[in-house]
């Protein structure tokens, strides 16, 4: 079986197909042998009854470079030894992973803060747009006030 090899210290991807969370985190843990603390976050399409599907679109010329800048900023700000930031695009069904981030640091508070920072910025400062299908109709998801408040914490 081909083993997943990650780029270090930063592995940033925009994925058109599903992602295997367990495999990615096992590889990240293995790649970050020197770190005392590893934090991960996985965001999934909630199986909330009404929502049948979720679609994420992006602006390709900006997405990956923006995510790389973001990961680099998190690395410097929190002294991370490494970070992973993967984001799905396309149509997903309930239960599927949308986003996966992981951070490695010497100390746990830095690893937690780094993952938190990455997520707040992927939510409301990266070039993704989300819409969900309820019944037969698609509805765009507007950024929430809470997301902007979360982002402000880092300023």
């Amino acid at each position: 079986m081909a083993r997943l090899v990650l780029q270090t210290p930063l592995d940033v991807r925009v994925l058109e197909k599903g992602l295997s969370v367990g495999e990615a985190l096992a590889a990240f843990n293995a790649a970050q042998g020197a770190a005392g603390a590893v934090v991960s976050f996985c965001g999934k399409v909630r199986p909330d009854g009404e929502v049948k599907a979720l679609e994420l679109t992006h602006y390709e010329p900006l997405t990956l470079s923006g995510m790389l800048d973001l990961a680099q900023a998190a690395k410097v700000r929190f002294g991370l030894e490494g970070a992973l930031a993967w984001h799905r695009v396309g149509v997903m069904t309930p239960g599927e992973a949308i986003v996966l981030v992981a951070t490695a640091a010497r100390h746990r508070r830095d690893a937690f803060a780094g993952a938190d920072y990455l997520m707040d910025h992927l939510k409301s400062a990266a070039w993704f747009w989300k819409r969900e299908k309820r019944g037969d109709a698609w509805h765009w998801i507007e950024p929430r006030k809470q997301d902007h408040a979360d982002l402000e914490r880092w300023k």
Partner: protein
Amino acid sequence: MGVRILFLGPLRDLAGQDECEVAAPLGWDGLLAAVNPAVAEQLREGRVNLAWAGKVLADKTQLSARDGDEVALLPPVSGG
């Protein structure tokens, strides 16, 4: 060739299209005239960012697109 204008995310519903092509050169005033009034209003209000040649413009009025360039209209994002 002209300039290609892309409408991202929810803007494509407001624009009624994914993209369109207009004559070069294209500046800020030309862009406002080229898109429909609802999109123009969002551009003016500052809710929409502008990417030109792979960069987000800090000052949208500096737009100066030439033949073959791509200009993307970026509404407020919602990732994760």
